[in-house]
């Protein structure tokens, strides 16, 4: 039995501790040890992006991160993107615009799109295609995904504008804080 390491992290805002082997990827630990199966295993070698999570705010392929390296890190998975029962604008737009078919790539797209839109809420089609090139979808042909991301960016920008006209501490303001 290989020696296990104790790792303390924060996942989706909650402190989370786990024991893992040094050779386990963060994706394996999320799915198999912590039963958080939102992050998907696609290629398992950093090409498809289905396993994308945010590690200290940066998008990473969790299949290429050793779980032991996550000590002290803040991790956001697709399970942490929605605000309780209210879907994030990216999720809402993916639903409304049918930007998925089989759905295996969707969690990775949503997490990467969040990282992209947090940096640039109004990307051009070219920018979206370029920045999402680390996420592969084998069903949709990408057009609906690109449109959903673009529309989500507009919604997030509109929400941010709406929030900035209300007083601090209002629900809209809090939502905007969580979205950025």
């Amino acid at each position: 039995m290989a020696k296990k390491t104790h790792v303390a992290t924060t996942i989706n805002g909650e402190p989370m501790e786990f024991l893992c082997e040094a050779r386990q990827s963060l994706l394996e630990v999320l799915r198999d040890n912590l039963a958080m199966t939102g992050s998907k295993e696609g290629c398992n070698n950093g090409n498809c992006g289905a396993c994308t999570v945010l590690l200290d705010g940066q998008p990473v392929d969790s299949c290429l991160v050793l779980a032991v390296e996550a000590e002290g890190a803040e991790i956001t998975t697709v399970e942490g993107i929605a605000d309780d029962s209210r879907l994030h604008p990216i999720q809402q737009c993916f639903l409304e615009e049918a930007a998925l078919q089989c759905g295996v790539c969707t969690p990775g797209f949503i997490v990467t799109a969040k990282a992209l839109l947090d940096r640039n809420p109004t990307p051009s089609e070219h920018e979206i295609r370029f920045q999402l090139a680390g996420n592969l979808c084998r069903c949709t042909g990408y057009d609906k995904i690109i449109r959903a991301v673009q529309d989500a960016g507009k919604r997030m920008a509109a929400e941010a504008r709406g929030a900035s006209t209300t007083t601090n501490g209002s629900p809209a303001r809090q939502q905007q804080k969580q979205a950025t």
Partner: protein
Amino acid sequence: MKAFEYAAPRSESEVLELLSGEAGHTEVLAGGTDLVGLMKKMIVTPDRVVSLSRVASLKKIEADSTAVRVGAMVSLDELAENPVSEFYPAIRQAIDEIASLQLRSQGTLGGELCQRPRCWYFRDGHGLLAARGKDVVEGDSRFHAIFGNAGPAKFVCPSRLAPALVALDARLRILGPHSNDETLMPLEAFYRTPKSEREREFLLDPNQFVAQVILPHPEGRLSASYEVRHGAGPEYPLVSAASSILVERGRVVEARVVLGQVAPTPWISREAIDAIVGRPVTPETAEAAGEAAASVATPLRDNEYKVRLAKVAVKRSLLKAAGLETGGF
């Protein structure tokens, strides 16, 4: 993945204490985008993995009037977004070509330079020299070397930043084997063409590691990178080139032209440099430099097409450095 011991030292000297002098026993972990995949496929099977992620000194970018020192653990994104990269357009452009947010934020400068070749024979467990080159020559050589391929090594240096960094005269600060050992090595001397499976493709002993990349002040030199890719996507380029030029009174007085993805090392094209020095950069002289670079190519059965791409890459990197290239795909 084979089980291994994981260590996360806090200082450069602690890293050295944990590295073994014997090949294959220990591996240095930076961003993990290459090493973790190699370990999964059991191409590398270390007993111990030494992570650099907790060594604060390796995450700094420091600039003074003569040079910029970039820590090996600075991510590609951090480097591209740092104001110092404005002085080195070739570097920023090379990073901007990497079309994956994930790999840019996870990948590090040191790891990018030390990543192992993409050669499919190597990645499939046949070794770097796969039957002393026979596998490539008789097999599928479409992505292999067109220069420097006379010996058993047919793979290409995979680094997308090395051509730019060699063009810019970057040096590496290499630490080890002992705690006070420090080597400053020009990046162009770091890469080598291995002659046997015992040699790695870079001059790093198993108990040494790259701590910093030192970029001399450009002092008026212009630079650019140009990649030829199969399409807009996450794949590695087919051929790339980086140029750094010093122009005085309308003529190039000093140049470095370096090709990527064409040889087991970044390929400094003496022929292209000789063709452009003493002349102004124009579409004609840039094209002549491309022709000169390609004139010494020795393509394999399936990669004649890369010779043409090499001409184009050299031409466009020179025009782009001089501010004459509009870009395009």
